[in-house]
């Protein structure tokens, strides 16, 4: 599972932020996880709990919210939500690694265009970092 790699990215970014803001320890980290990428939250959570050991994040609580993946067609303006059960297993797997590859498989349900944007719910995003100085 490459959730581990994403967890490392989160821990690395939070550490940088903590150092920049002069935090002695991080108490709370809020994450948004977009549904397009179909991250396995439990694996992400496990990886975070392993990776935070003996770091500034040791005592941090991770609050993870999922966000629906909203797509908007640039041709006709139609908005819709990505649903995993509407694509094949292979396609979901590919999008799991590289969300942009959605453009190779998904089409606007109204006009058939591959020219859509991911309005929200693409990948892993840091919402806030709290700690004590």
């Amino acid at each position, binding site marked *: *599972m*490459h959730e*581990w*790699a*994403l967890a*490392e*990215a*989160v821990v*690395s*970014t*939070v550490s*940088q*932020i903590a150092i920049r803001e002069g935090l002695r320890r991080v108490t709370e980290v809020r994450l948004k996880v977009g549904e397009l990428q179909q991250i396995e939250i439990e694996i992400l959570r496990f990886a975070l709990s392993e990776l935070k050991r003996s770091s500034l994040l040791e005592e941090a609580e991770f609050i993870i919210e999922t966000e629906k993946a909203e797509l908007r067609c640039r041709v006709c303006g139609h908005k819709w939500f990505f649903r995993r059960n509407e694509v094949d297993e*292979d396609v979901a797997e*590919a999008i799991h*690694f*590289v*969300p*942009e*590859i959605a*453009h*190779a*498989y998904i089409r606007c349900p109204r006009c058939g265009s*591959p*020219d859509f*944007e991911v309005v929200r719910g*693409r*990948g*892993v*995003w*840091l*919402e*806030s*970092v709290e700690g004590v100085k």
Partner: protein
Amino acid sequence: MADPRVSVIEDRLKKVNKVLSVSSGKGGVGKSLIASTLSLALADKGYEVGLFDIDFTNPSTHIILNAESVSPTEENGVIPPRVRGLKYMSIIYYSSGHVSPLRGVDVSNALIELLAITRWGETDFLVIDMPPGIGDAVLDMIRLVKKANFLVVTTPSKLAFETVRKLASLLLEMRIPIIGVIENMKMRESPFIQEQVEKMGLRFLGEIPFDYSLEEAIGDVNKLLKTMFAQKVKELAEKIALQTLGD
């Protein structure tokens, strides 16, 4: 608040000694063939080499190397498969033959994602096959991969060199290391490109003749390595290894 992927990229490339971005600005000058053959040549010399194809809407190196029967594995991230001894990574493992119409913002996002999750491990040279244009991919390499060295490919044509001149002037202005310029598909004697390159204060690495047998060797690495093209690229590889590792 923040995209966590960007800060991990440096970490992912920590054990990569040199990043070589094979670029041009111009399309069709031989970037993909040179990137592929250069990677093979460096691996042949005993270096640990990665090859990363980031021409996402027009990937080519998998055809040159016939790399479709393998695939990346997952292990705390993505481990590139081995192709003829190279650690090889391409978006084709996810697009599998489908057209990928990607706007620049998508190219940028896909590049950041793959840089953030791919584990290259101990690597002497990571060769990057760049797309044409002076856009998202070039700007992101400059922005995100601080250790990138640019290897610039041109043909003898005025049309190719005009764009190469622009790319090179941008890299010079940004103080990005340029290994030098290769003149590919040379058909007749002419000092034009070498003169222009040297006038810009850049190193002219050498020329590669037009090789009529090259097309047949695409997809057959053994054949490719026996071409006169590959012979010239091997000489350049020697020069490039000496020059970049000597830094």
